[in-house]
């Protein structure tokens, strides 16, 4: 017996080593053992907290990529939503079936970054970092994550200039979502870049502050249902048949950074057909 104790005493470190090795292999082999499930894993409060911290730091350096990925995802989702809405419009009578070419006419071509932007002139333009090399054409609609932005005016290989809706000549066919009345939004007072005027809404409809205005179905540039703004104030002159409505723009032009380019693939067909009527009218 004494010899045994002496042996253990002499070789205690070797025995400890063997025990620890056997224990760690045992932990490894039953990898669902109580210890690893209960304590020693990344769900443990201390390790989870520290990993969270280091991840937060790493995430911050990665934000640029995340933004780009999200913008791309939004482009895809926007295109899908527009197509689904066009296939089955909410207010269509039973039995209306949209032609597939018509339903698919809006294509979200690409995402671009705004590199130059003005808001305080009478006619404002934005410059974006993509041109016809990325599929952009003149006349395409431009929307942001929050609402309408404008229309492509000119483009070269790598850059495009966009006519912002803060432009004295730019008109957007707009409808009020609650009442369904259609009018034309136009930037007329030329001073406040957060307000746009909505015309041609009959004074005999009821409108309320806070009504949402979106692009109407009669638009050729923008897909229907893109936010334009919300009603901020309205008044009616005694001798007028229409309201004067101020909309608060849903796009904040001072903060705009990423925009989506929308192409209406049937635009030319529609316009050439409509233009063919013009000579007859003369």
């Amino acid at each position: 017996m004494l010899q045994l104790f002496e042996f253990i005493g002499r070789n205690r470190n070797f025995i400890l080593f063997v025990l620890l090795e056997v224990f760690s292999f045992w932990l490894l082999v039953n990898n669902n053992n109580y210890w690893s499930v209960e304590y020693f894993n990344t769900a443990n409060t201390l390790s989870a907290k520290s990993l969270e911290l280091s991840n937060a730091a790493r995430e911050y350096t990665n934000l640029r990529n995340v933004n780009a990925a999200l913008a791309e995802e939004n482009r895809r989702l926007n295109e899908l939503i527009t197509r689904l809405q066009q296939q089955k419009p909410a207010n269509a009578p039973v039995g209306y079936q949209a032609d597939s070419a018509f339903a698919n006419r809006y294509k979200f071509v690409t995402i671009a970054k705004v590199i130059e932007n003005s808001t305080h002139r009478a006619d404002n333009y934005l410059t974006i970092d993509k041109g016809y090399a990325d599929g952009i054409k003149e006349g395409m609609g431009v929307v942001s994550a929050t609402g309408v932005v404008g229309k492509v005016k000119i483009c070269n290989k790598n850059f495009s200039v966009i006519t912002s809706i803060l432009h004295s000549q730019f008109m957007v066919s707009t409808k009020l979502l609650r009442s369904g009345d259609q009018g034309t939004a136009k930037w007329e007072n030329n001073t406040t870049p957060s307000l746009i005027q909505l015309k041609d809404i009959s004074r005999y409809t009821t409108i309320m502050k806070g009504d949402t205005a979106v692009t109407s179905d009669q638009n050729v540039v923008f897909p229907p249902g893109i936010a334009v703004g919300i009603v901020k104030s309205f008044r009616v002159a005694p001798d007028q048949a229409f309201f004067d409505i101020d909309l608060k723009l849903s796009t904040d032009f001072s903060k705009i950074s990423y925009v989506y380019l929308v192409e209406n693939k049937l635009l030319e067909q529609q316009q050439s057909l409509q233009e063919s009527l013009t000579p007859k009218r003369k």
Partner: protein
Amino acid sequence: MNPTEIIRTVVRWLVYVLLHIFVARHLVLFDYAFCFIYVGAILFLPIEINLTALLFIGFFTGVIIDTFDNTLGLHTSASVLIAYLRPIIIKYQLGQKLTEGRLQLSIKELGFPTFLSYILMLISIHHMVLFLVEAGSLRLFPYTFLKIVCSLVFTTMTIILTRLFSR
């Protein structure tokens, strides 16, 4: 050992473990070279430390690393092994230098060739055990072997780098 040395030892251990958890764990070169810089936490403990303490330190270092990798037992077995082999290798490699008095395991005191052979020996044992145990069999041996060699080079380089910056 005076208090300053104890604090320095503890801080050095902590720096290696934290470096591994927050930085080196994510460093993978060409899908083959991994960096297990925490080996340094065991390699550079003072020479005169007693073997029982060394084994326990190795064990807990391994458990902490495993906690963050969700591989309880894997790093633990490899670090306990190098903790056990460390005094043997020190005796074998630094035999005559040890008799000259107290020695620190630094590049300056050992000289670069001795230092390199000391860390290479232990790191290669560690990596061999680690990757073979992780693979679980010899079936993919060429692949595992390539991983061992690449990681050995990578870990050794980073550990030498950290030693150049520390005292």
